[in-house]
């Protein structure tokens, strides 16, 4: 009885969460066209989301590229296919690891920060104060963050791609004595622009999704400081899950559309 009851409650919460997220998404899209435009707020969010999060994404990309090259080189040598290390590393990074790791790392950091900020505004009635003063809070608080993320996530992903490939090169050159030209030449031969663009396409979707989750959980925060802690940790988990799960479906979609 209690089990069925709590299962029903979980189901209801899940439906409310997905529904709320979809609704916020629609509201944001509608508000994009409304005045005022708050461009300076978008610029500020680009600074917060992008500039201050790039370091962590690039360090992760560097070491991911390195470990990927190491694993591939050692194991592909067993099949005598060490010459293909470059393209394998490049495809993995450009198509998957660049956008996904960036979204999880930058996204987790950014979205939990957004949830904490909007959540504390919510529990102290500051969002209601904005509304009561006749200010469009979606336009003021949510839209700039999402616009900034739509720009920043692809840009950071491009940087992460480049740094990841360089990391791979460092390993094959210094660890495996492979010629750097061979590494880049095989990449240039096997990897096409589509591989790069699908990764960037993913990062745009991730940017939207991650920021939306951060904003939604912040706006839905209730229950004072305890509720704020809960919604912030929820955001970290949900962002990671959302990126990993949606990555599969985006991959499927891109293969369907562009292969």
């Amino acid at each position: 009885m209690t089990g069925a009851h709590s299962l029903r409650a979980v189901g209801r919460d899940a439906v409310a969460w997905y529904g709320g997220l979809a609704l916020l998404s629609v509201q944001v899209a509608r508000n994009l066209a409304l005045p005022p435009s708050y461009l300076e707020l978008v610029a500020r969010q680009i600074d917060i989301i992008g500039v201050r999060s790039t370091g962590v994404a690039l360090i992760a990309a560097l070491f991911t590229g390195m470990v990927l090259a190491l694993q591939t080189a050692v194991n592909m040598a067993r099949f005598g296919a060490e010459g293909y290390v470059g393209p394998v590393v490049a495809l993995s990074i450009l198509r998957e690891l660049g956008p996904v790791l960036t979204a999880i790392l930058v996204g987790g950091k950014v979205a939990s920060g957004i949830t904490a900020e909007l959540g504390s505004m919510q529990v102290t009635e500051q969002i209601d104060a904005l509304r009561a003063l006749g200010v469009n809070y979606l336009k003021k608080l949510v839209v700039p963050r999402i616009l900034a993320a739509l720009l920043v996530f692809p840009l950071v992903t491009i940087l992460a791609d480049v740094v990841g490939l360089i990391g791979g090169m460092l390993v094959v050159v210094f660890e495996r004595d492979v010629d750097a030209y061979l590494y880049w030449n095989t990449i240039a031969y096997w990897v096409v622009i589509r591989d790069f663009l699908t990764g960037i396409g993913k990062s745009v979707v991730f940017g939207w999704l991650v920021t939306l989750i951060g904003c939604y959980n912040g706006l839905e925060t209730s229950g004072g400081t305890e509720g704020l802690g809960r919604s912030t940790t929820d955001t970290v988990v949900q962002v990671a899950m959302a990126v990993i799960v949606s990555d599969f479906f985006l991959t499927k979609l891109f293969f369907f559309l562009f292969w």
Partner: protein
Amino acid sequence: MSASSPLVVQVRDVHKSFEDKRVLQGVSLDLEKGTTLAIMGGSGTGKTVLLRIIDGLVYPDAGQVSLFGTRIESLREEQMLPLRRRAGFVFQGAALFDSMSVFENVAFPLREHTKQSLGEITDRVHRFLGLVGLPGTDDLLPAELSGGMRRRVGIARALVMEPEVVFFDEPTAGLDPTNARLVAELIAQLRQGVCDTAIVVTHDIEFADMVADRMAILYGGRFAETGTPAEVHASTNEAVRKFLAGELREG
């Protein structure tokens, strides 16, 4: 208060529940221009919810709400914004923007909604900070203010756009007697100058007697009594008498 006074607020048969708790069960009220209405009742009777419904911050489950003659119960958030700009709302916890100074808090609505120069904004902010008795506090952050000061900054922020009506949510609650009296005197004084139409939600009977032309006692999700302060004090309704005697507890 002639019958021809335009209605600033009109509420008809409003219902509101949260989860299983039925808070409002058929509330109606009219607010005419030039009138201050005190909505009173024990804690948890839905006074604040009613005030939020009137300002469009919360949607009612059923019933009609008009603000400045416009039905708002089915308006979208962005359609509600121009109406809310004509009304001021003073929150119980002041709800100041905690990352902004006192000056920036009061200047915020002017910066958002007007194209005034910095000089004009500064003059106006100083005028309203003076009005609430807080000159020279420009650079303080909300965290550095006492509860009473915060409340008064909140009042200055709500008034700086010179709204046609002001909604006060428990303006004296949680303040020490001196600060509570200061805020009460301030609100009474506003009636002569800046804004003569207001709804005050309170459980403080003394304060309500000081500022209100009309009173409404909320009990059991409905108004148990409405009328002038004299009429309400003379009420024979059991719940009203108990509330006025300070014996009514509902939560």
